[in-house]
Protein backbone atom coordinates (compact mmCIF):
# COMPACT_ATOMS: atom_id res chain seq x y z
CA UNK A 1 0.00 0.00 0.00
CA UNK A 2 2.85 2.36 -0.63
CA UNK A 3 3.32 2.72 -4.35
CA UNK A 4 3.91 6.18 -5.71
CA UNK A 5 3.46 7.26 -9.30
CA UNK A 6 4.62 10.49 -10.88
CA UNK A 7 2.98 11.25 -14.21
CA UNK A 8 4.40 14.11 -16.28
CA UNK A 9 5.29 16.07 -13.16
CA UNK A 10 6.87 19.43 -13.81
CA UNK A 11 7.78 22.30 -11.53
CA UNK A 12 8.74 25.89 -12.12
CA UNK A 13 9.58 28.55 -9.55
CA UNK A 14 8.25 31.72 -11.15
CA UNK A 15 9.50 31.45 -14.72
CA UNK A 16 12.44 29.20 -13.87
CA UNK A 17 11.70 25.67 -15.01
CA UNK A 18 13.41 23.43 -12.47
CA UNK A 19 11.85 20.10 -13.34
CA UNK A 20 10.78 19.84 -17.00
CA UNK A 21 8.81 16.61 -16.89
CA UNK A 22 9.28 13.53 -14.76
CA UNK A 23 7.62 10.14 -14.99
CA UNK A 24 8.52 7.72 -12.25
CA UNK A 25 7.15 4.63 -10.62
CA UNK A 26 8.05 3.71 -7.06
CA UNK A 27 6.82 0.29 -6.08
CA UNK A 28 5.50 -0.82 -2.74
CA UNK A 29 8.26 -1.49 -0.23
CA UNK A 30 11.03 -0.33 -2.52
CA UNK A 31 14.09 1.63 -1.37
CA UNK A 32 14.51 4.30 -4.02
CA UNK A 33 17.42 6.71 -4.03
CA UNK A 34 17.44 10.02 -5.90
CA UNK A 35 20.99 10.90 -6.73
CA UNK A 36 22.53 13.70 -8.71
CA UNK A 37 24.81 16.69 -8.42
CA UNK A 38 23.90 19.75 -6.41
CA UNK A 39 21.02 21.70 -7.92
CA UNK A 40 19.76 18.79 -9.98
CA UNK A 41 16.30 18.97 -8.43
CA UNK A 42 16.43 16.02 -6.01
CA UNK A 43 15.05 17.95 -3.07
CA UNK A 44 12.47 19.65 -5.22
CA UNK A 45 11.19 16.33 -6.51
CA UNK A 46 11.02 14.93 -2.97
CA UNK A 47 9.20 18.01 -1.72
CA UNK A 48 6.71 17.72 -4.55
CA UNK A 49 5.96 14.19 -3.41
CA UNK A 50 5.70 15.38 0.20
CA UNK A 51 3.33 18.15 -0.79
CA UNK A 52 5.61 20.91 0.51
CA UNK A 53 5.77 22.35 -3.01
CA UNK A 54 2.89 22.63 -5.42
CA UNK A 55 3.11 20.71 -8.68
CA UNK A 56 3.06 23.02 -11.70
CA UNK A 57 1.91 20.34 -14.13
CA UNK A 58 1.25 16.62 -13.98
CA UNK A 59 -0.09 14.20 -11.39
CA UNK A 60 1.14 12.43 -8.29
CA UNK A 61 -0.66 9.20 -7.47
CA UNK A 62 -0.45 7.05 -4.38
CA UNK A 63 -1.71 3.52 -4.88
CA UNK A 64 -3.42 4.67 -8.02
CA UNK A 65 -5.24 7.55 -6.33
CA UNK A 66 -4.61 11.13 -7.34
CA UNK A 67 -2.97 13.01 -4.47
CA UNK A 68 -1.63 15.98 -6.38
CA UNK A 69 -3.51 18.60 -4.39
CA UNK A 70 -3.67 16.93 -0.99
CA UNK A 71 -2.21 18.76 2.05
CA UNK A 72 1.13 17.33 3.26
CA UNK A 73 -0.29 15.91 6.48
CA UNK A 74 -3.07 14.11 4.61
CA UNK A 75 -0.72 12.16 2.38
CA UNK A 76 0.35 9.76 5.08
CA UNK A 77 4.04 10.32 4.41
CA UNK A 78 6.81 11.05 6.88
CA UNK A 79 9.84 13.12 6.09
CA UNK A 80 13.27 13.24 7.69
CA UNK A 81 15.11 16.49 7.08
CA UNK A 82 18.78 17.22 6.62
CA UNK A 83 18.91 19.50 9.68
CA UNK A 84 16.73 17.02 11.65
CA UNK A 85 14.12 19.77 12.23
CA UNK A 86 13.43 18.69 15.79
CA UNK A 87 11.31 21.02 17.92
CA UNK A 88 13.97 22.54 20.21
CA UNK A 89 11.79 23.22 23.25
CA UNK A 90 10.23 19.76 23.33
CA UNK A 91 11.80 16.71 24.92
CA UNK A 92 12.64 13.68 22.82
CA UNK A 93 9.44 12.06 24.07
CA UNK A 94 7.34 15.03 23.00
CA UNK A 95 9.12 15.30 19.68
CA UNK A 96 8.45 11.71 18.76
CA UNK A 97 4.88 11.88 20.04
CA UNK A 98 4.04 15.17 18.31
CA UNK A 99 2.54 13.78 15.08
CA UNK A 100 0.39 11.39 17.11
CA UNK A 101 -0.77 14.21 19.35
CA UNK A 102 -1.70 16.20 16.25
CA UNK A 103 -3.66 13.21 15.01
CA UNK A 104 -5.64 13.30 18.27
CA UNK A 105 -4.47 9.95 19.57
CA UNK A 106 -5.17 9.29 23.28
CA UNK A 107 -2.24 9.93 25.64
CA UNK A 108 -1.77 6.37 26.80
CA UNK A 109 -1.56 5.12 23.24
CA UNK A 110 0.96 7.82 22.34
CA UNK A 111 3.13 6.86 25.30
CA UNK A 112 3.14 3.22 24.22
CA UNK A 113 4.02 4.05 20.61
CA UNK A 114 6.79 6.41 21.66
CA UNK A 115 8.26 3.71 23.90
CA UNK A 116 8.19 1.25 21.08
CA UNK A 117 9.87 3.60 18.60
CA UNK A 118 12.46 4.59 21.19
CA UNK A 119 13.28 0.95 21.74
CA UNK A 120 13.80 0.26 18.05
CA UNK A 121 16.10 3.27 17.78
CA UNK A 122 17.98 2.85 21.08
CA UNK A 123 16.65 6.11 22.43
CA UNK A 124 14.95 4.85 25.60
CA UNK A 125 17.50 6.47 27.91
CA UNK A 126 17.20 9.87 26.29
CA UNK A 127 13.45 10.35 26.26
CA UNK A 128 13.46 13.24 28.73
CA UNK A 129 16.30 15.15 27.07
CA UNK A 130 15.98 18.17 24.87
CA UNK A 131 17.36 17.94 21.32
CA UNK A 132 20.31 20.20 22.10
CA UNK A 133 21.48 17.72 24.72
CA UNK A 134 21.90 15.02 22.09
CA UNK A 135 24.66 14.17 19.64
CA UNK A 136 24.11 14.51 15.91
CA UNK A 137 23.48 10.80 15.44
CA UNK A 138 21.01 10.70 18.33
CA UNK A 139 19.17 13.70 16.92
CA UNK A 140 18.91 11.99 13.59
CA UNK A 141 17.47 8.94 15.31
CA UNK A 142 14.89 11.10 17.05
CA UNK A 143 13.92 12.54 13.67
CA UNK A 144 13.55 9.02 12.33
CA UNK A 145 11.59 8.07 15.44
CA UNK A 146 9.20 10.93 14.82
CA UNK A 147 8.74 9.56 11.31
CA UNK A 148 8.16 5.92 12.18
CA UNK A 149 5.59 6.38 14.98
CA UNK A 150 3.03 7.48 12.44
CA UNK A 151 3.39 4.27 10.47
CA UNK A 152 3.50 6.23 7.23
CA UNK A 153 2.84 4.82 3.78
CA UNK A 154 6.30 5.92 2.79
CA UNK A 155 9.36 7.62 4.26
CA UNK A 156 11.04 10.54 2.57
CA UNK A 157 14.63 11.31 3.49
CA UNK A 158 16.41 14.45 2.30
CA UNK A 159 20.17 13.97 2.74
CA UNK A 160 19.63 12.82 6.33
CA UNK A 161 23.25 11.88 6.92
CA UNK A 162 25.11 14.79 5.42
CA UNK A 163 25.60 16.54 8.76
CA UNK A 164 27.26 13.52 10.37
CA UNK A 165 30.91 12.55 10.38
CA UNK A 166 32.11 9.77 8.13
CA UNK A 167 32.10 6.93 10.68
CA UNK A 168 28.67 7.79 12.01
CA UNK A 169 27.37 8.16 8.49
CA UNK A 170 28.27 4.58 7.68
CA UNK A 171 26.65 3.44 10.92
CA UNK A 172 23.43 5.31 10.34
CA UNK A 173 23.37 4.09 6.77
CA UNK A 174 23.31 0.54 8.04
CA UNK A 175 20.66 1.42 10.62
CA UNK A 176 18.38 2.89 7.99
CA UNK A 177 18.84 -0.16 5.79
CA UNK A 178 18.09 -2.37 8.77
CA UNK A 179 14.97 -0.32 9.48
CA UNK A 180 13.85 -0.79 5.91
CA UNK A 181 14.22 -4.54 6.24
CA UNK A 182 12.17 -4.53 9.45
CA UNK A 183 9.39 -2.19 8.38
CA UNK A 184 9.26 -3.07 4.68
CA UNK A 185 7.88 0.41 4.05
CA UNK A 186 8.55 2.31 0.84
CA UNK A 187 11.44 4.72 1.27
CA UNK A 188 12.62 7.51 -0.97
CA UNK A 189 16.05 8.75 -0.10
CA UNK A 190 17.83 11.79 -1.52
CA UNK A 191 21.60 12.02 -1.57
CA UNK A 192 24.35 13.43 -3.70
CA UNK A 193 26.71 10.73 -2.48
CA UNK A 194 26.86 7.98 -5.07
CA UNK A 195 28.32 5.53 -2.54
CA UNK A 196 25.22 5.92 -0.39
CA UNK A 197 23.10 5.44 -3.47
CA UNK A 198 24.93 2.29 -4.55
CA UNK A 199 24.90 0.66 -1.14
CA UNK A 200 21.35 1.45 -0.03
CA UNK A 201 19.16 1.46 -3.08
CA UNK A 202 16.92 -1.15 -4.63
CA UNK A 203 16.45 1.38 -7.38
CA UNK A 204 18.51 4.43 -8.20
CA UNK A 205 17.09 7.46 -9.98
CA UNK A 206 19.87 9.59 -11.46
CA UNK A 207 18.87 13.22 -11.90
CA UNK A 208 20.56 16.01 -13.79
CA UNK A 209 19.07 19.46 -14.39
CA UNK A 210 15.68 18.18 -13.28
CA UNK A 211 15.64 15.36 -15.82
CA UNK A 212 15.78 11.67 -15.00
CA UNK A 213 18.89 10.40 -16.76
CA UNK A 214 18.40 6.75 -15.87
CA UNK A 215 16.48 4.53 -13.48
CA UNK A 216 17.68 1.11 -12.48
CA UNK A 217 19.23 -1.14 -9.87
CA UNK A 218 22.71 -0.12 -8.69
CA UNK A 219 24.33 -2.89 -10.72
CA UNK A 220 22.35 -2.03 -13.86
CA UNK A 221 23.63 1.51 -13.67
CA UNK A 222 27.15 0.32 -13.03
CA UNK A 223 27.20 -2.22 -15.83
CA UNK A 224 25.15 -0.45 -18.43
CA UNK A 225 24.95 3.31 -18.02
CA UNK A 226 22.62 4.85 -20.61
CA UNK A 227 24.71 7.94 -21.20
CA UNK A 228 27.90 9.78 -20.38
CA UNK A 229 26.40 11.55 -17.39
CA UNK A 230 25.34 8.39 -15.62
CA UNK A 231 28.57 6.66 -16.58
CA UNK A 232 30.57 9.47 -15.01
CA UNK A 233 28.38 9.79 -11.94
CA UNK A 234 28.03 6.19 -10.83
CA UNK A 235 31.17 4.39 -9.70
CA UNK A 236 34.11 5.59 -7.66
CA UNK A 237 36.64 6.61 -8.76
CA UNK A 238 35.00 7.98 -11.88
CA UNK A 239 35.01 6.17 -15.19
CA UNK A 240 37.81 7.23 -17.58
CA UNK A 241 36.68 8.75 -20.86
CA UNK A 242 38.78 8.63 -24.02
CA UNK A 243 38.12 10.40 -27.30
CA UNK A 244 39.87 10.66 -30.65
CA UNK A 245 41.55 7.71 -32.34
CA UNK A 246 41.00 5.26 -29.52
CA UNK A 247 37.26 6.00 -29.61
CA UNK A 248 36.92 5.77 -33.38
CA UNK A 249 38.65 2.38 -33.28
CA UNK A 250 35.50 1.29 -31.37
CA UNK A 251 33.20 3.20 -33.79
CA UNK A 252 32.26 5.64 -31.04
CA UNK A 253 32.76 9.31 -30.24
CA UNK A 254 33.73 8.61 -26.67
CA UNK A 255 34.64 5.41 -24.92
CA UNK A 256 34.64 4.82 -21.19
CA UNK A 257 36.66 2.41 -19.09
CA UNK A 258 36.32 2.07 -15.33
CA UNK A 259 39.58 2.23 -13.32
CA UNK A 260 39.01 -1.35 -12.16
CA UNK A 261 38.81 -2.63 -15.74
CA UNK A 262 42.30 -1.70 -16.89
CA UNK A 263 45.25 -4.09 -16.80
CA UNK A 264 48.72 -2.80 -16.05
CA UNK A 265 51.91 -4.18 -17.42
CA UNK A 266 55.53 -3.03 -17.28
CA UNK A 267 56.39 -4.60 -20.61
CA UNK A 268 53.57 -4.35 -23.12
CA UNK A 269 50.01 -3.15 -23.63
CA UNK A 270 47.60 -1.19 -25.81
CA UNK A 271 48.35 2.26 -24.39
CA UNK A 272 51.63 3.71 -23.24
CA UNK A 273 51.70 6.11 -20.33
CA UNK A 274 53.71 7.68 -17.56
CA UNK A 275 52.82 7.18 -13.91
CA UNK A 276 51.64 10.36 -12.21
CA UNK A 277 50.56 10.66 -8.60
CA UNK A 278 49.26 7.56 -6.88
CA UNK A 279 46.81 7.24 -4.01
CA UNK A 280 47.51 4.35 -1.63
CA UNK A 281 44.44 3.22 0.27
CA UNK A 282 45.99 0.05 1.66
CA UNK A 283 43.68 -2.41 -0.01
CA UNK A 284 43.84 -0.62 -3.36
CA UNK A 285 46.07 1.84 -5.09
CA UNK A 286 44.74 4.37 -7.57
CA UNK A 287 47.29 5.40 -10.14
CA UNK A 288 46.91 8.47 -12.27
CA UNK A 289 48.52 7.69 -15.59
CA UNK A 290 49.21 10.22 -18.32
CA UNK A 291 48.48 8.34 -21.53
CA UNK A 292 49.93 9.53 -24.83
CA UNK A 293 47.33 11.31 -26.92
CA UNK A 294 44.88 11.87 -24.05
CA UNK A 295 44.52 15.16 -22.22
CA UNK A 296 43.14 14.00 -18.88
CA UNK A 297 45.11 11.42 -16.93
CA UNK A 298 43.54 7.96 -16.63
CA UNK A 299 42.75 6.57 -13.22
CA UNK A 300 43.70 2.93 -12.82
CA UNK A 301 43.04 0.63 -9.89
CA UNK A 302 45.65 -1.92 -8.87
CA UNK A 303 46.18 -3.87 -5.71
CA UNK A 304 47.59 -2.17 -2.66
CA UNK A 305 51.10 -3.59 -2.81
CA UNK A 306 52.12 -2.36 -6.22
CA UNK A 307 55.40 -0.46 -6.37
CA UNK A 308 55.69 2.02 -9.21
CA UNK A 309 57.62 5.25 -9.22
CA UNK A 310 56.53 8.66 -10.36
CA UNK A 311 57.42 9.16 -14.03
CA UNK A 312 57.90 5.47 -14.77
CA UNK A 313 56.62 4.25 -18.14
CA UNK A 314 53.90 1.58 -18.05
CA UNK A 315 51.51 -0.07 -20.47
CA UNK A 316 47.74 -0.24 -20.04
CA UNK A 317 45.15 -2.51 -21.68
CA UNK A 318 41.39 -2.16 -21.11
CA UNK A 319 39.26 -5.28 -20.69
CA UNK A 320 37.63 -5.14 -24.11
CA UNK A 321 34.23 -6.51 -23.04
CA UNK A 322 33.97 -3.85 -20.34
CA UNK A 323 34.53 -0.86 -22.60
CA UNK A 324 31.51 1.50 -22.77
CA UNK A 325 30.82 3.21 -26.09
CA UNK A 326 28.97 6.49 -26.54
CA UNK A 327 27.80 8.32 -29.67
CA UNK A 328 28.21 12.02 -30.28
CA UNK A 329 25.04 12.80 -28.26
CA UNK A 330 26.55 11.07 -25.28
CA UNK A 331 24.11 8.15 -25.59
CA UNK A 332 25.40 4.63 -25.02
CA UNK A 333 25.92 2.43 -28.07
CA UNK A 334 25.07 -1.20 -27.35
Amino acid at each position, binding site marked *: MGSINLVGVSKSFGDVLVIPSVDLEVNEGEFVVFVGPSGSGKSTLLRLIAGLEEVSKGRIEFNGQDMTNLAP*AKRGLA*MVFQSYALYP*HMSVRENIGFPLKMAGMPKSEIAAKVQEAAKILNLSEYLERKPRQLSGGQRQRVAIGRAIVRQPKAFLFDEPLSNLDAALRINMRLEIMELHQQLKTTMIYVTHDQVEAMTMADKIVVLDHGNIEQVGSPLDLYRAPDNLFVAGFIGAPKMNFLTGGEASRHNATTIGVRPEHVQISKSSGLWTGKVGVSEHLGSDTFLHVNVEGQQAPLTVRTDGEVQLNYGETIYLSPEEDKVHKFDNNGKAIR
Partner: protein
Amino acid sequence: MKLRVLSDYPAIVVLFIWMLGPLIATIYYSLIRYNLLNPRIKGFAGIENYEFLLTDFVFTDSIYNSIQLLGSIIGITVVLGLLISYLLDQDLYGGRLLQLVIISPFFVMPTVSALIWKNLLMHPVNGYFTYLLGLFGLPPIDWFADIPLGSIIIIVSWNWLPFAVLVFITAQQSMSLEIKEASKMDGAGHLAFFFQIYLPHLGKAIGAVVMIQMIFHLNIFAEIFTTTTGGPGTQTTNLAFLVYRKALLDFDIGGASAGGIISIVFANIVAIFLLRMIAKNMNSD
Protein backbone atom coordinates in the same frame (compact mmCIF):
# COMPACT_ATOMS: atom_id res chain seq x y z
CA MET B 1 47.69 44.94 44.84
CA LYS B 2 46.08 48.21 45.64
CA LEU B 3 42.75 48.95 44.13
CA ARG B 4 42.55 52.51 42.91
CA VAL B 5 38.89 52.99 42.30
CA LEU B 6 39.07 56.40 40.71
CA SER B 7 41.74 55.56 38.18
CA ASP B 8 40.77 51.95 37.52
CA TYR B 9 37.04 52.38 37.20
CA PRO B 10 36.45 55.98 36.20
CA ALA B 11 33.18 55.20 34.43
CA ILE B 12 31.73 53.56 37.50
CA VAL B 13 32.73 56.44 39.69
CA VAL B 14 31.16 58.97 37.34
CA LEU B 15 28.04 56.84 37.09
CA PHE B 16 27.79 56.66 40.85
CA ILE B 17 28.10 60.38 41.32
CA TRP B 18 25.69 60.89 38.46
CA MET B 19 23.08 58.65 40.02
CA LEU B 20 23.76 59.14 43.67
CA GLY B 21 23.84 62.94 43.63
CA PRO B 22 20.24 63.43 42.53
CA LEU B 23 19.08 60.52 44.63
CA ILE B 24 20.58 61.93 47.80
CA ALA B 25 19.23 65.37 46.96
CA THR B 26 15.76 63.91 46.43
CA ILE B 27 15.89 62.01 49.68
CA TYR B 28 16.99 65.17 51.43
CA TYR B 29 14.17 67.26 49.97
CA SER B 30 11.65 64.58 50.78
CA LEU B 31 12.52 64.92 54.45
CA ILE B 32 12.12 68.69 54.78
CA ARG B 33 9.22 71.09 54.56
CA TYR B 34 9.70 72.91 51.29
CA ASN B 35 6.84 74.62 49.52
CA LEU B 36 7.54 77.35 46.98
CA LEU B 37 4.25 79.12 47.70
CA ASN B 38 4.96 79.30 51.37
CA PRO B 39 8.68 79.80 51.94
CA ARG B 40 8.23 80.54 55.62
CA ILE B 41 7.24 76.97 56.39
CA LYS B 42 10.52 75.11 56.60
CA GLY B 43 12.60 72.83 58.73
CA PHE B 44 12.91 69.10 59.11
CA ALA B 45 9.70 67.25 58.34
CA GLY B 46 10.62 63.68 59.16
CA ILE B 47 8.24 61.30 57.47
CA GLU B 48 5.50 63.89 57.33
CA ASN B 49 5.70 64.26 53.55
CA TYR B 50 5.48 60.52 53.13
CA GLU B 51 2.67 60.18 55.57
CA PHE B 52 0.72 62.90 53.84
CA LEU B 53 1.23 61.28 50.47
CA LEU B 54 0.55 57.71 51.47
CA THR B 55 -2.72 58.58 53.12
CA ASP B 56 -3.80 60.71 50.17
CA PHE B 57 -6.41 59.00 47.99
CA VAL B 58 -4.73 60.55 44.92
CA PHE B 59 -1.68 58.50 45.68
CA THR B 60 -3.54 55.20 45.95
CA ASP B 61 -5.35 56.04 42.73
CA SER B 62 -2.10 56.81 40.98
CA ILE B 63 -0.54 53.51 42.02
CA TYR B 64 -3.61 51.71 40.79
CA ASN B 65 -3.56 53.66 37.52
CA SER B 66 0.13 52.98 37.01
CA ILE B 67 -0.42 49.26 37.37
CA GLN B 68 -3.43 49.33 35.08
CA LEU B 69 -1.56 51.23 32.40
CA LEU B 70 1.43 48.92 32.61
CA GLY B 71 -0.59 45.71 32.53
CA SER B 72 -3.00 46.70 29.78
CA ILE B 73 -0.42 48.18 27.44
CA ILE B 74 1.89 45.22 27.79
CA GLY B 75 -0.98 42.79 27.37
CA ILE B 76 -2.32 44.51 24.27
CA THR B 77 1.03 45.01 22.55
CA VAL B 78 2.20 41.45 23.21
CA VAL B 79 -1.01 39.73 22.10
CA LEU B 80 -1.58 41.90 19.04
CA GLY B 81 2.13 41.93 18.28
CA LEU B 82 2.23 38.13 18.23
CA LEU B 83 -0.81 37.88 15.99
CA ILE B 84 0.49 40.47 13.57
CA SER B 85 3.98 39.04 13.30
CA TYR B 86 2.52 35.58 12.81
CA LEU B 87 0.38 36.93 9.98
CA LEU B 88 3.33 38.74 8.44
CA ASP B 89 5.19 35.43 8.44
CA GLN B 90 2.58 33.80 6.19
CA ASP B 91 3.84 35.00 2.79
CA LEU B 92 0.96 37.42 2.40
CA TYR B 93 0.64 39.38 -0.81
CA GLY B 94 2.07 42.82 -0.07
CA GLY B 95 3.49 41.64 3.23
CA ARG B 96 6.56 43.82 2.92
CA LEU B 97 4.56 47.00 2.55
CA LEU B 98 2.27 45.96 5.37
CA GLN B 99 5.28 45.42 7.59
CA LEU B 100 6.51 48.93 6.90
CA VAL B 101 3.10 50.45 7.59
CA ILE B 102 2.74 48.56 10.84
CA ILE B 103 6.16 49.57 12.06
CA SER B 104 5.91 53.26 11.20
CA PRO B 105 4.05 54.46 14.36
CA PHE B 106 7.21 53.74 16.31
CA PHE B 107 8.85 56.73 14.65
CA VAL B 108 6.18 59.15 15.85
CA MET B 109 7.15 60.81 19.10
CA PRO B 110 4.74 60.37 22.04
CA THR B 111 3.62 63.99 22.23
CA VAL B 112 2.82 64.09 18.53
CA SER B 113 1.02 60.78 18.55
CA ALA B 114 -1.05 61.88 21.54
CA LEU B 115 -2.02 65.07 19.74
CA ILE B 116 -2.92 63.17 16.58
CA TRP B 117 -5.18 60.88 18.56
CA LYS B 118 -6.66 63.68 20.57
CA ASN B 119 -7.51 66.09 17.76
CA LEU B 120 -7.77 63.93 14.67
CA LEU B 121 -9.22 60.65 15.86
CA MET B 122 -10.77 60.89 19.29
CA HIS B 123 -12.20 64.39 19.16
CA PRO B 124 -15.86 64.15 20.22
CA VAL B 125 -17.01 66.57 17.51
CA ASN B 126 -14.50 66.57 14.68
CA GLY B 127 -12.82 63.23 15.33
CA TYR B 128 -12.67 60.46 12.76
CA PHE B 129 -14.08 57.94 15.24
CA THR B 130 -17.10 60.18 15.79
CA TYR B 131 -17.61 60.25 12.01
CA LEU B 132 -17.32 56.46 11.81
CA LEU B 133 -19.78 55.97 14.67
CA GLY B 134 -22.09 58.44 12.96
CA LEU B 135 -22.11 56.27 9.83
CA PHE B 136 -23.76 53.57 11.90
CA GLY B 137 -26.05 56.04 13.60
CA LEU B 138 -24.25 55.68 16.92
CA PRO B 139 -23.74 58.55 19.35
CA PRO B 140 -20.20 59.94 19.59
CA ILE B 141 -17.92 58.91 22.42
CA ASP B 142 -16.15 61.62 24.36
CA TRP B 143 -13.07 59.48 24.72
CA PHE B 144 -11.08 61.44 27.26
CA ALA B 145 -14.12 62.07 29.45
CA ASP B 146 -15.84 58.69 29.17
CA ILE B 147 -12.91 56.27 29.14
CA PRO B 148 -9.87 58.44 29.92
CA LEU B 149 -7.53 55.69 31.07
CA GLY B 150 -8.66 53.44 28.21
CA SER B 151 -7.88 56.20 25.72
CA ILE B 152 -4.36 56.60 27.06
CA ILE B 153 -3.89 52.85 26.93
CA ILE B 154 -4.99 52.84 23.27
CA ILE B 155 -2.63 55.68 22.37
CA VAL B 156 0.44 54.22 24.05
CA SER B 157 -0.32 50.73 22.75
CA TRP B 158 -0.55 52.11 19.20
CA ASN B 159 2.81 53.75 19.73
CA TRP B 160 4.47 50.63 21.12
CA LEU B 161 2.85 47.89 19.09
CA PRO B 162 5.48 48.35 16.34
CA PHE B 163 8.22 47.72 18.87
CA ALA B 164 6.68 44.39 19.82
CA VAL B 165 6.10 43.45 16.18
CA LEU B 166 9.67 44.37 15.26
CA VAL B 167 11.15 42.23 18.02
CA PHE B 168 8.86 39.30 17.23
CA ILE B 169 9.55 39.45 13.50
CA THR B 170 13.26 39.42 14.17
CA ALA B 171 12.88 36.50 16.54
CA GLN B 172 10.74 34.46 14.20
CA GLN B 173 13.30 34.76 11.45
CA SER B 174 15.55 32.46 13.40
CA MET B 175 13.02 29.65 13.12
CA SER B 176 14.21 27.26 10.46
CA LEU B 177 12.02 26.64 7.47
CA GLU B 178 12.49 22.93 7.99
CA ILE B 179 10.83 23.10 11.41
CA LYS B 180 7.80 24.76 9.88
CA GLU B 181 7.70 22.14 7.17
CA ALA B 182 8.18 19.32 9.63
CA SER B 183 5.22 20.57 11.63
CA LYS B 184 3.18 20.69 8.45
CA MET B 185 4.07 17.08 7.70
CA ASP B 186 3.24 16.19 11.30
CA GLY B 187 -0.25 17.56 10.79
CA ALA B 188 -0.06 20.74 12.89
CA GLY B 189 -2.57 23.34 11.70
CA HIS B 190 -2.30 27.07 12.34
CA LEU B 191 -3.61 26.86 15.89
CA ALA B 192 -1.42 23.97 16.96
CA PHE B 193 1.60 25.50 15.29
CA PHE B 194 0.99 28.89 16.90
CA PHE B 195 0.63 27.60 20.43
CA GLN B 196 2.99 24.63 20.46
CA ILE B 197 5.84 25.73 18.24
CA TYR B 198 5.62 29.44 17.48
CA LEU B 199 4.98 30.70 21.02
CA PRO B 200 7.68 28.59 22.70
CA HIS B 201 10.13 29.69 20.02
CA LEU B 202 9.35 33.34 20.78
CA GLY B 203 9.51 32.88 24.56
CA LYS B 204 12.65 34.93 24.99
CA ALA B 205 11.51 37.67 22.67
CA ILE B 206 8.24 37.96 24.58
CA GLY B 207 10.22 38.20 27.82
CA ALA B 208 12.36 40.98 26.37
CA VAL B 209 9.36 42.93 25.10
CA VAL B 210 7.61 42.70 28.47
CA MET B 211 10.74 43.68 30.35
CA ILE B 212 11.61 46.70 28.24
CA GLN B 213 8.04 47.97 28.21
CA MET B 214 7.86 47.63 31.99
CA ILE B 215 10.77 49.98 32.31
CA PHE B 216 9.32 52.54 29.91
CA HIS B 217 5.65 52.49 30.84
CA LEU B 218 6.15 53.09 34.56
CA ASN B 219 6.87 56.68 33.60
CA ILE B 220 4.25 57.46 30.99
CA PHE B 221 3.94 61.19 31.01
CA ALA B 222 3.78 62.92 27.63
CA GLU B 223 0.59 61.19 26.55
CA ILE B 224 -1.17 62.08 29.81
CA PHE B 225 0.13 65.63 29.80
CA THR B 226 -1.03 66.37 26.26
CA THR B 227 -4.46 64.76 26.52
CA THR B 228 -6.10 64.55 29.93
CA THR B 229 -3.59 66.24 32.27
CA GLY B 230 -4.31 63.54 34.78
CA GLY B 231 -8.07 63.95 34.84
CA PRO B 232 -10.93 63.85 34.95
CA GLY B 233 -10.40 63.90 38.69
CA THR B 234 -7.56 61.47 39.26
CA GLN B 235 -8.63 58.96 36.65
CA THR B 236 -5.47 59.20 34.55
CA THR B 237 -2.97 60.29 37.18
CA ASN B 238 -0.14 57.83 37.45
CA LEU B 239 2.88 58.05 39.73
CA ALA B 240 4.97 60.08 37.32
CA PHE B 241 2.17 62.52 36.77
CA LEU B 242 1.50 62.79 40.49
CA VAL B 243 5.08 63.83 41.13
CA TYR B 244 4.80 66.45 38.41
CA ARG B 245 1.54 67.68 39.86
CA LYS B 246 2.99 68.01 43.34
CA ALA B 247 6.08 69.81 42.20
CA LEU B 248 4.88 72.08 39.44
CA LEU B 249 1.20 72.58 40.14
CA ASP B 250 1.22 72.56 43.95
CA PHE B 251 4.81 73.84 44.20
CA ASP B 252 5.32 71.33 47.02
CA ILE B 253 8.92 70.28 46.51
CA GLY B 254 9.00 68.19 49.67
CA GLY B 255 5.89 66.26 48.72
CA ALA B 256 7.07 65.81 45.13
CA SER B 257 10.39 64.45 46.32
CA ALA B 258 8.62 62.01 48.57
CA GLY B 259 6.55 60.95 45.55
CA GLY B 260 9.75 60.52 43.56
CA ILE B 261 11.27 58.30 46.21
CA ILE B 262 8.11 56.23 46.37
CA SER B 263 8.17 55.82 42.57
CA ILE B 264 11.72 54.56 42.83
CA VAL B 265 10.69 52.05 45.47
CA PHE B 266 7.71 51.04 43.36
CA ALA B 267 9.89 50.61 40.27
CA ASN B 268 12.29 48.51 42.30
CA ILE B 269 9.52 46.27 43.52
CA VAL B 270 8.50 45.72 39.92
CA ALA B 271 12.11 45.22 38.94
CA ILE B 272 12.99 42.80 41.69
CA PHE B 273 9.97 40.55 41.40
CA LEU B 274 8.86 40.67 37.81
CA LEU B 275 12.07 41.38 35.96
CA ARG B 276 13.93 38.72 37.90
CA MET B 277 11.21 36.22 37.19
CA ILE B 278 11.38 36.92 33.48
CA ALA B 279 15.15 37.10 33.36
CA LYS B 280 15.35 33.74 35.08
CA ASN B 281 12.91 32.31 32.60
CA MET B 282 14.99 33.61 29.74
CA ASN B 283 18.19 32.16 31.10
CA SER B 284 16.68 28.77 31.74
CA ASP B 285 17.07 27.65 28.14
